[in-house]
């Protein structure tokens, strides 16, 4: 059975990746998950300078999911290069660095610093608010999405994938814009924007009021968007959004994802990535599939 997938010219040993923000750079999981077994680790978003993130409460539970308003707390690219890259390079997995930024210049600064580093791919997080445009997310406007992709692509050395926000009217428009900007691949979806109100305190549960909605409840939206984007662009896709087990992963691949990422599930079950991988193998055995790539996008 072949689980290897080729994505943006890079050979991944299997299609199971970790979603940005749910796995840090792997250190918290090291003792329970053999990091050598994971196809690719998409690290927590890295910004040019340290970001403190939002005030707590940052987390709320919802029906079959959760909200987070962590605010991309991270120690900045310099610490990442010094500590996280050497840590991950101990393992036989691929390193995908997620880029966070508040302006196009900030994104480019991170990409430039990574150009001389031993990482395999960059994932551009365009769900960050663009402070120069009043805090509107880069990823909700096709022109902005195309521009930021184009500018980062100019300075990026590694293949560049763009992580799409689902909080748009037509995600295929954003996908096409990002493709026009020169992206090598796509990952979708990022979190939906949600809110929870504490009815007894009579105020929002999150200090930030709104947060990113993730978990199994969002899977139908994510699968639908992967399906739509597959038909709209020629770019390879990492599918994510509520994957809890191997069966969920297969849904995404049938819809058109070349690889998948496990996110919220990691927070609930530290061994989720391995469980998903085992579930994919079980499915392949059940349906006599010899090569996982056979099933990608075969839904009409």
């Amino acid at each position: 059975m072949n689980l290897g997938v080729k994505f943006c010219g890079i050979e991944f040993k299997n299609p199971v990746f970790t979603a940005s923000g749910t796995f840090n750079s792997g250190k918290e999981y090291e003792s329970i998950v053999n990091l050598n077994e994971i196809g690719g680790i998409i690290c927590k978003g890295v910004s040019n300078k340290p970001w403190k993130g939002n005030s707590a409460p940052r987390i709320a539970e919802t029906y079959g999911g959760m909200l987070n308003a962590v605010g991309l707390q991270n120690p900045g690219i310099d610490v990442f290069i010094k500590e996280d890259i050497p840590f991950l390079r101990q393992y036989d997995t691929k390193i995908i660095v997620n880029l966070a930024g508040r302006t196009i210049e900030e994104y480019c600064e991170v990409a430039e610093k990574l150009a001389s580093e031993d990482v395999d791919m960059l994932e551009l997080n365009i769900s960050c608010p663009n402070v120069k445009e009043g805090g509107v997310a880069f990823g909700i406007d096709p022109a902005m999405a195309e521009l930021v992709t184009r500018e980062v692509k100019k300075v990026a050395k590694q293949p560049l994938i763009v992580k799409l926000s689902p909080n748009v009217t037509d995600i295929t428009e954003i996908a096409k814009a990002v493709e026009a900007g020169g992206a090598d691949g796509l990952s979708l979806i990022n979190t939906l924007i949600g809110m929870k109100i504490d009815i007894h305190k009579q105020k929002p549960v999150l200090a930030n009021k709104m947060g990113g909605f993730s978990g199994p409840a969002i899977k139908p939206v994510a699968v639908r968007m992967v399906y739509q984007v597959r038909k709209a662009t020629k770019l390879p896709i990492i599918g994510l959004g509520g994957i809890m087990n191997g069966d969920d992963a297969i849904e995404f691949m049938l819809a058109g994802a070349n690889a998948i990422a496990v996110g919220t599930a990691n927070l609930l079950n530290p061994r989720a990535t391995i469980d998903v991988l085992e579930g994919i193998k079980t499915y392949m055995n059940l349906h006599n599939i010899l090569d996982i790539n056979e099933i990608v996008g075969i839904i009409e």
Partner: protein
Amino acid sequence: MCHNPLNKVKCRVISNREIAPNIYNMIIGVDDMADSVKPGQFVNLYVKGGVHLLPRPISVCGVNRKQKTIRVVYAVVGEGTKILTTRQKRDSIEVLGPLGNGFNINVEAQHILLVGGGVGTPPLLETAKKLKEKKGTAVKLTIVLGFKNDVYLADEFKAYGDVHIATDSGSKGFKGNVIQMMESEMKETIKNIDYVYACGPTPMLKGLFDFNNKYGLKGEFSLEERMGCGFGACVGCVVPIRRVLNEESMKITKETMTDIDYDYKKVCQDGPVFNYLEVIF
């Protein structure tokens, strides 16, 4: 066989009963996990069904290594804890842990004060027990417990030291909060205190912060914040922690703090226990 705290295990409920209005006492058979639990640590308890996904992080109240069980005392505060009350003897329950750093019980101290507020009281019971086990008569414990109205666990503390109870309603002991009780009735005792361990609601800890500073006490607070994963991966449960400790920085509050004054630390991994002087209220 060393248990990995990130190994989510299916455990068995031994008992689960209400010990005060909306306060439950659950004993769980946890096998090897029992060997590694330290006082002040917590466990993640999970609700079945796929609707309530996040762990309910509950402090460990007691450990029985011979029987390989842990004891948790939890309050019914929401949908998840409400469902936990329905778990019965012989039901399975998924547990992750032990998590967090726990109290440092190796401090040099002869007279220790333990301050518990409401459902912050349970972890102090295991802490009192371990302190006594470790130091025997070389350490004297004074235990101060505050409740809104219903008192629980207080009797069990008597085995380890003098117990002083305060209730907001006046139903038992001193009418008022623990700070008021200590200020009005326990000034002589406080003068001899070497170290403080505290766990309870934020307003109590805030009051105790000022109280400790006033009397020059050293000690540790166990904090809480809404958690995601409970083991350090999601960076959700942060609290602001002072970067430097000096006279000026002690005045910093959550309202007045600026970026250079603090770092966000994770309650589940860097805590839940912190040197109380570092905590910004």
